[in-house]
């Protein structure tokens, strides 16, 4: 104890205190996350093949191979479709939900907490739930169709329907967080603003498009970034739900990356796909954040 007191009185030690406090966090984050990303990007320039000894540097050769593969191009396109529809549907739903939560007075905390429930459910469990909901034999939707005398739809056997189911499941998974972000945006607004505008004769739609949306633009930006991130990297929900199938109808980039890396053991080409996902993520978030910058 005596030495500690002496030490802490020492000015140089005092200066070191904040660095010492943040060091463990830096070690974990840089050592695991940053290192992995840089290592992964590095891997994409080497030939890493278990069958061939050594790891020669081959420049952009892996990129050339991957980019010329039809399977990659298809999964790239599918990722864009998947993200676009997930994010659009997600924004519509979360905006509607946030508005409802903003207006509800009774038990508002309860409803808010309730909204977050899907956030607590794992991707795998989400996949199982939606597989069960849309199954051809045991799914609620098909059983209702059958009860009504309609034709069954084999959702998971049809490429377009399977993509639809995957998008719905993913949206279910990403909406809660976005709802809370938008709700926080609404709650930060001055309620008198609506009163004044309504008294002045502005219609509901005018209030929405001219007042509410411009004012919560930054929040819309954040929730779009968050939802597109989650969707580009979505893997937990798709793999157990469809496995990327039928055929490769739901094989988005993250699933393709897993297959190429762990089924074919083409690690360095998987690293190429990882780099592509990373670049897409950054590009999309820069885009959203610049479009949805606050007015001030």
């Amino acid at each position, binding site marked *: 104890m005596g030495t500690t007191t002496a030490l*802490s009185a020492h000015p140089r030690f005092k200066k070191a205190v*904040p660095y*010492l*406090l*943040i060091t*463990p*966090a*830096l070690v*974990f*984050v840089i050592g*695991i*996350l940053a290192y*992995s990303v840089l290592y*992964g990007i590095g*891997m994409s320039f080497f030939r890493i093949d278990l069958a061939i000894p050594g790891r020669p540097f081959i420049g952009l050769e892996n990129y050339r191979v991957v980019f010329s593969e039809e399977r990659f191009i298809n999964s790239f396109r599918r990722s864009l479709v998947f993200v676009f529809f997930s994010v659009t549907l997600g924004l519509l*739903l979360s905006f509607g939900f946030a*508005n*409802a939560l903003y*207006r*509800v007075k009774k038990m508002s*905390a309860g*409803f808010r*907490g*309730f*909204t977050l*429930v899907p*956030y*607590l459910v*794992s991707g*795998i*469990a989400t*996949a*199982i*739930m939606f597989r*069960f*909901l849309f199954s051809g*034999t045991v799914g*609620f939707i098909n*059983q*209702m169709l059958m*009860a009504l005398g309609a034709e069954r739809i084999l959702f998971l056997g049809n490429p377009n329907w399977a993509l639809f189911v995957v998008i719905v499941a993913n949206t*279910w998974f990403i909406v809660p967080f976005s709802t*809370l*972000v938008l*709700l926080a945006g609404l709650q930060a607004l001055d309620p008198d603003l609506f009163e004044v505008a309504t008294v002045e004769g502005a219609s509901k739609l005018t209030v929405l498009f001219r007042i509410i949306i411009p004012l919560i633009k930054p929040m819309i930006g954040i929730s779009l970034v968050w939802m597109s*991130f989650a969707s580009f*990297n979505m*893997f937990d929900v798709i*793999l*157990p739900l469809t496995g990327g199938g039928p055929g490769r109808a739901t094989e988005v980039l*993250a699933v393709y*990356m*897993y297959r190429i*890396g762990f089924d074919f053991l083409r*690690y360095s080409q*998987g*690293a190429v*796909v*990882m780099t592509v996902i*990373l670049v897409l993520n950054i590009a999309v978030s820069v885009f959203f954040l610049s479009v949805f910058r606050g007015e001030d």
Partner: protein
Amino acid sequence: MKREINVQTIGNAVNKRLYWIPLALLILWTVFPLLWGFSASFKTYAEVYQVPPRILPRTLNLRAYNVVLESRHFFTYVYNSAYLAITSSIIAVFVSVLAGYGFAKYKFRFAGILLLLILIPRIIPRASLIIPLFQMMSALRLLNSYPALMITYTATAIPLNTMVLTGFFRGIPQALEDAASIDGAKLWQRIWYIIIPMSLPALVTVSVMSLREAWNEFPFVLALTTATRMRTLPYQLFMLRDAMGIEDWPVVLAFTVFTIVPILTFYLIFQKKVTSGLVSGAIK
């Protein structure tokens, strides 16, 4: 004139009630997928196939739960999940408290850059880390080990935790600590006796977030383990769905319920604090 006002009030009243429609939709959208699965976990094997569908089971049939509880290694998976979630959350919260305190209460060189260094990895696609992480852990001979997963889960939880805690600690008045310092309180005493008790909502939030990360995690455990004894609940749920030819739906769903209930219970206990804490963390 009088009538007009009346019509307007009625119109307003209707408009004000309109939020119930999206609210009802919200509840249906959130609950129905869970409810449909949850109820089926109590159905018999045949009842699941019954048309027209019944939302609630005819009787509370516990066969599926018995099958899950008696399945091989089930408690190993429960143990793995709980052990990894708890240890990695404790480490992640502890490390983030220190870092958050450092960033919130000190002015030092490179503070801004160092904070960014911790926060930016939050946006790194987690699934995309699996290939380099696999290579790294296999080089370190840590595949199929608890430390590999524990370290990874801790690292992925730290950025958001640090963000939430830094923001929260900044709001705690410095005067309290100054007074304690004059009385001779050391750094760790100030953190333990002043900062921690005043930050309980933020600490609850980051604990729930960290537990959720680790409890539900799938890509890392899929990539970093191959041994059956190392599987966590989500991994086994994935295998379960994969392994069965004709799916025994009530059993798969009962297993799913086992993975959801613990974390959901924990969340619901602290729900109010978590929702506000999460949002303040997400927005900054």
